[in-house]
């Protein structure tokens, strides 16, 4: 008979994505045996992430203050706004250290099949935000799949009449000469969108 507290921990861990029953058990034993304050620190970190992290009231990325770091950073160019599906996408763009504008996180894409319409996304908030006239260009960085494409087209329809410059991130081959690993549809698209040098 395993003690109930251990069973409870295993059950909770096994709910995590990508974690099966056995891995959950291993993690639970690890936590149990870990020296010092590890368990206390872990539980505190878990509690705090829920208590303190919330959505930025302007761009809807994650923050533990009212406005997120990207919105507060005065060195960032407020004239350019990059629209992404998720916070994970924002982090990916940040890793490039190329983009110096601001962000807006939609928290999803338009997907009738999944019952997600414009009102489920942070689109109204995006439009409100543009009301102050500071943003001049929008970069639509939704994924290059059906729903991402449709979302970008929808936003274009709303934003163009407002006199804003709207652009869509390019699609095609990944950098670094991985032609041989690209799938046929990507390659076919890259071929048909080739440009003259």
């Amino acid at each position: 008979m395993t003690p109930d507290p251990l069973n409870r921990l295993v059950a909770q861990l096994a709910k995590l994505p990508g974690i099966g029953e056995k891995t959950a058990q291993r993690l639970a034993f690890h936590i149990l045996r870990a020296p010092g304050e590890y368990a206390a620190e872990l539980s505190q970190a878990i509690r705090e992430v829920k208590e303190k992290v919330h959505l930025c009231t302007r761009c809807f990325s994650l923050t533990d203050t009212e406005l997120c770091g990207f919105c507060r950073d005065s060195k960032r160019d407020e004239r350019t706004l990059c629209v992404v599906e998720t916070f994970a996408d924002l982090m990916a763009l940040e890793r490039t250290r190329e983009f110096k504008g601001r962000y807006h996180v939609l928290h999803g894409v338009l997907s009738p099949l999944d019952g997600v319409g414009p009102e489920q996304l942070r689109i109204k908030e995006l439009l409100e935000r543009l009301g102050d006239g500071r943003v001049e260009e929008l970069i639509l960085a939704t994924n290059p799949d059906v729903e991402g494409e449709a979302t970008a087209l929808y936003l274009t329809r709303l934003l163009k009449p407002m006199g804003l410059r709207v652009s869509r991130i390019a699609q095609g081959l990944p950098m670094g000469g991985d032609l041989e690993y690209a799938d046929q549809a990507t390659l076919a698209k890259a071929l048909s969108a080739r440009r003259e040098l």
Partner: protein
Amino acid sequence: MRLLSLQVRDFRNLSQVSLAPSEHATIAVGQNGQGKTNLLEALYLLATLKPLRAGRLSELVRWGTQSARVVGRFLLKGAEREIAVEVGGGVRQAFVDGKKAASLEDYFGGVSVVAFTPDDLEVVKGGPDARRTFLDRAVFNRFPAYLKESREYGRALKNRNRLLRAGPVEPAYLEAYDETLARAGARVYVRRRALMAELGPRARATFEAIGRTPEPAAYGYHPAHLGEVDFATADEATLAGALREALATRTRRDGERGFTSVGPHVDDVTVTLGKRSARAYASQGQQRALVLGWKIAEIENLEAALGFLPLLLLDDVSSELDPERNAYLMNYLSASGAQVFLTTTDGSLVRGAAAEDSLWLGVRAGEVTSAGAVLESSSV
């Protein structure tokens, strides 16, 4: 490309089959319902990962067992590769040389197969969806990227239909999906058009040889309801624009019916004999000759494009053709040098495709045996 060996376990009614096919013709003889077609179906699944007949994946697993497995060793571009497919629990998994194959496409590049079934022979006479499937199968074979492209179209279509059924939505939302659908649809148009441009003339020429008909055959693909656009020459962007327009003008009607009434998913392949619809006017023999012409054209076209012959699977086609056209097909198969798998209820019908190196199999109640005896009895 050549199949060196084939193993089948618990696939439909086949519990265990292991065979080394002939370099040319492998002929499975048996009565109906014994499992001949299942053998071809296993091969088709191995080469395409798709079932040959419509239905659920679970139906492929032999009754009372957990999973089905098909393994083939292929000689592909000078190298031996083992490809395996397992079906179980409603999913299928492919393995290439024992490693899970992440994408279907890696695999399509190498193995290519053309199947020919009695259902195909009815395709001229039958409904438009059968003709679209027939066409799309040829497009998949010719352009591997089409798999993903047509799926994108399908997804955009489902989304738009759902939106139509949801009742009135703000116009910009529907327009965004119209545009997405139009772009994906334009891709499907140009793929199908490109295939027809290659295949049409070949199919016409083949029909001339077997049709015994003075009127020339024509195979065409002309999207319906696209408006003024000149389909033969328009570029992809123009086609996308035309489809978007067509979608927009039909929004109200589509909304009432709850589905999208224009686009590649409702198009048809037209087959004519001397400008008259073959569907309405051609005899049964002519209709089958028209399909035969198409299939042979598809094989030749693939050979020209790939540099090697695809694997050919013919399921009991001979009994449905008249003797002269059957003889033409058999001679074509034996002259082509292709690796062919044929099933028949009567061995004498496919004699013309056989040679000394042919492998004759007997199929009875899910058991496959090497079958000299079966041949003797059926060739009397």
